[in-house]
């Protein structure tokens, strides 16, 4: 029992720390329908900026703001590459991710920077409490933004580009705004993670995109995504569930800590394949039933007029 509580608490804390990352990934993958791989780079950018600012004596909150701004810029670059440079979306993200690897090393000055003993945002408040407040605040802000005129245009950019363009929105601009905002959140997540682990590492961002994706997919599968409000909530809960699953899996003796990324990949694969298979099976069953129904109709009323049509 105590063990479970411990796993639970650790998972919730980690889940909340990475929930902002998951919200960022939700914006690009789900709202914009833009598979953005910048994330692996911008997560590190966030932790690097925060760590270096903290080491130089800036307030940890200012450091978080700096990280957020850094993420915004990185995302805007990816958006520009894709929209103005006409580079394929996946490739734009990969290019930016690679570029950021060098940039992050420049920011850090060495492969990793310790901030142990410096002032941090979690000094006077537990990470769970603070992250809960921050994550809920960002969730509500994001929900509100997505209901504004600009937010609606951003959602429509991912839903029907041709339509929103014919209504006068510049879809290049909305794409850049969306990708930028997404990476801002990702970098902010990196800043908080660096402050709980007390260091920033140039490789800490590797695999972050898959973690974010896992949270989004798991959350949507379990909690549903009917409205924006539901979807963002699902993404946050998905981030927590993902941590619980991973922690539980790692407790199996055979697994080692280094298997984390493999486990993550497998979870994402299952979460992706399962709904598709389920709906296919459902469809098949439905089709069989309908066909049988129609057949029996024909047999009982051979000359009945065909009915149905739209509606």
């Amino acid at each position: 029992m105590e063990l479970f509580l411990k796993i639970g608490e650790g998972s919730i804390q980690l889940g909340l720390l990475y929930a902002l990352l998951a919200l960022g990934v939700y914006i690009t993958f789900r709202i914009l329908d833009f598979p953005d791989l910048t994330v692996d780079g911008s997560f590190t950018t966030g932790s690097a900026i925060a760590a270096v600012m903290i080491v130089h004596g800036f307030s940890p909150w200012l450091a978080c703001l700096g990280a957020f701004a850094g993420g915004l810029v990185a995302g805007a670059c990816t958006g520009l590459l894709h929209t103005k440079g006409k580079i394929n979306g996946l490739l734009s993200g990969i290019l930016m991710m690679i570029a950021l690897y060098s940039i992050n090393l420049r920011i850090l000055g060495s492969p990793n920077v310790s901030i142990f003993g410096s002032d941090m945002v979690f000094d006077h408040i537990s990470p769970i409490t603070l992250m809960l407040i921050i994550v809920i605040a960002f969730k509500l802000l994001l929900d509100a933004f997505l209901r504004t005129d600009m937010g609606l245009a951003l959602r429509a950019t991912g839903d029907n580009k041709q339509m929103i363009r014919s209504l006068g929105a510049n879809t290049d601009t909305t794409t850049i705004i969306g990708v930028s905002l997404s990476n801002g959140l990702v970098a902010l997540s990196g800043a908080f993670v660096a402050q709980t682990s007390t260091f920033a590492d140039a490789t800490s961002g590797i695999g972050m995109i898959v973690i974010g994706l896992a949270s989004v997919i798991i959350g949507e599968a379990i909690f549903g995504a009917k409205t924006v409000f539901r979807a963002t909530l699902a993404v946050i809960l998905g981030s927590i569930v993902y941590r619980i699953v991973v922690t539980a899996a790692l407790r199996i003796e055979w697994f080692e800590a280094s298997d984390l990324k493999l486990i993550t990949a497998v979870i994402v694969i299952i979460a992706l394949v399962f709904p598709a298979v389920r709906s296919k099976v459902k469809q098949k069953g439905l089709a069989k039933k309908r066909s049988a129904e129609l057949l029996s109709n024909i047999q009982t009323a051979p000359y009945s007029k065909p009915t149905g049509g739209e509606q």
Partner: protein
Amino acid sequence: MLHIENVSKLFNPGTVDEKIALIGIQLHLKPGDFVTVIGSNGAGKSTLMNIISGVIKPDTGLVNIEGQSVGHLAEYQRSRWIGRVFQDPMAGTAPHMSIEENLAMAYRRGKNRGFSFGVTTARRNLFKQELSRLGIGLENRLRAKVGMLSGGERQALSLLMATFTRPQILLLDEHTAALDPARADLITSLTKEIVRDMNLTTLMVTHNMEQAIRLGNRLIMMDKGKIILDIDEERKKDLTIERLMSEFEQISGTKMADDRVVLG
């Protein structure tokens, strides 16, 4: 209102696939004109619509709207003057967003999109009122996802979204062609009503000759990238399908051979 001056457009120029979509098009619309456009497949009707709305830039020629040259403006910039309905009912609406959200986006046509809420109580009432004009009960389903609507309902919504901000020009590209006859009739009569009530300058492509004759105050026929026939209000009054067919045959020297052209 709308002036199209000597517009030409080639696709794949200089290759074996070269297609003359438009060649030397001249077209002038007066405010309130309702022009129906007919012509066989590949005549260049959709290309003309795309050039007016800025989706495609012409190789030569000018497009003027209300005395202003719009050649340098992108599609999204021209949208403040132009409402469009496409053939595909899926094209004009965002399926994963609600009816009221779709209308809110149309409400901001050609205006800046900032941080005020898209759907407010006042706007919702306006949307309800506008939707009830369609007479198909959508006003009671404001929060339904548009993807749940039938093709006919989606097209009616698209028509409303294209028109309720009173654009200077309305472009309709075979917007009833993908619907079954009953729904096509509904959309046609809604179109007629809305265009008349709002006095919209309209260009409507249709493959239905009877409809092209019955609606509007002017009819043009296109073939191989040219306007080959331009019938004004006076002559349109006693136009028949037979007369239209024989005119076409005289001008082009061939029979109207297109299954998609519906006679009645």
